[in-house]
């Protein structure tokens, strides 16, 4: 048992093990302003994932050599807490978290109006408290809300979601069990209003047809998550602004 091919992840009615349809995302809860000492903050509870994000700044960028004369630099850190997974994670950066931090920073560099804050720095801190597949997407979504909560001017909010493939079937937003049998993963970061992409990764094996389905599933998940983000921001501002 437990082999690759004999797992039934989708039944004859097209329902997944947790009852979702192929294009359905897990339940999502978003709250803003959860870190009192931060300039902006948010938490995203996405299925079994729990990710928090804090924003500090804009502040003076130092050391001076990291300053940009015409815009702010984004200092992004993605990190997994030691108790976020079944096997404890030893504290400290690793290659995976560094790469995710880098592509996340580049995603936000495309929407944050950094030109308004020359020579300054905006810190974006993403911490995975509990991991259950899809933490980088939850982290980007949380950071978007935290930036807005901090009042940082942006041209758009970024929502991130991934689709993948299990046993030859394309599904949206894989959970941990599905991810263990995943044959492909396509995480995307999409601007809510413009529909532009600012974050894109992929690994695995997708035919042109499968790739199109995964792409469309991701695009279909953007609007509902965007609504939750707006709702979270309204609640944290007491309905005002």
């Amino acid at each position: 048992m437990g082999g690759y091919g004999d797992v039934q992840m989708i039944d004859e009615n097209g329902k997944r093990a947790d009852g979702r349809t192929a294009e359905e995302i897990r339940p999502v809860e978003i709250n803003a302003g959860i870190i009192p000492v931060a300039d902006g903050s948010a938490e995203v509870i996405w299925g079994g994932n729990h990710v928090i994000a804090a924003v500090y700044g804009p502040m003076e960028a130092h050391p001076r050599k990291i300053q940009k004369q015409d815009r702010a630099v984004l200092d992004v850190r993605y990190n997994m807490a030691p108790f976020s997974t079944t096997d404890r994670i030893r504290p400290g950066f690793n290659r995976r978290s560094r790469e995710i931090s880098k592509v996340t920073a580049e995603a936000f560099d495309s929407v944050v109006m950094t030109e308004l804050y020359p020579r300054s720095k905006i810190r974006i801190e993403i911490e995975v408290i509990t991991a259950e597949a899809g933490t980088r997407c939850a982290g980007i979504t949380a950071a978007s809300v935290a930036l807005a909560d901090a009042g940082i001017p942006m041209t758009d909010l970024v929502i991130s979601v991934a689709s993948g493939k299990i046993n030859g079937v394309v599904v949206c937003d894989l959970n941990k069990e599905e991810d263990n049998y995943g044959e492909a993963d396509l995480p995307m970061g999409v601007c809510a209003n413009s529909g532009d992409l600012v974050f894109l990764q992929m690994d695995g094996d997708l035919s042109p047809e499968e790739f199109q389905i995964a792409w469309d599933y991701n695009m279909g998940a953007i609007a509902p998550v965007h609504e939750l983000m707006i709702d979270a921001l309204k609640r944290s501002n007491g309905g005002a602004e």
Partner: protein
Amino acid sequence: MATPPVPELLRAHLNQLALEDQRLDGRARFEGRNVVVETGVLPRAEGSARVTMGDTIVLAGVKFQIMTPYPDRPTSGGFMTSAEVRPVSGVHWEAGPPSPEAIELGRVVDRGIRESGCIDMEDLCILPGEKAWQVILDVFAISDDGNLFDAFATAAMAALRTSIIPGERFDVGEDRPLPVSKTPMMCSYHRVGGRYVYDAVRREEIGGGERIHITLGDDNHVHSLQKGLKGAFTAAEFNEIMEHARTRCAELRDLINN
């Protein structure tokens, strides 16, 4: 740690308040913030707690690993504490390897628990000389508005007291609660405006002087002491805060044991 642009102004303000026996947030000298303890908050940890004291929020998570006992103590398990103060928790905490402040935090919390003997290390033995449980306590700051020491120590005890040894997952017997026989608690005091206050907020820490941390076990036994930062205190001052710590630790212990 970052210092404010004009720390002397904050210091002068705190001195002025102290003359009127006031504090920044209206509390009395030895009045603590309201403490909220929630357990079972981390689904991937074998024991966990979240502690909120005003705007200070921390998590503690307990994980278990199987270790080879040390040769000089072949029937003993292990206990390790790691304090992570990630830059998410405040503008003054910077990225990089653990700062001396974070290391001190973890070590002081660790000592209070270890020296109280509340965890029976012999009970953690699985196979003498070959296999024993190692208890790993990770304390993690979400929001630092002062007194991370007490927040960490409180969360640590609440997490340990609700921990389940995952015997089944490691194939070494059944799951069972981690026996924790005592409840050591920590109380921290900062010199602010010339006198000691209990449970300082971040601005009191910045504008204050030295600090003293006291961990008391059941029956008020002293299990760890730590004096931090520049400054000197008198025996009379110490006696005063020790007396307060005895009362306050008992209150906190009741909160954890409820």
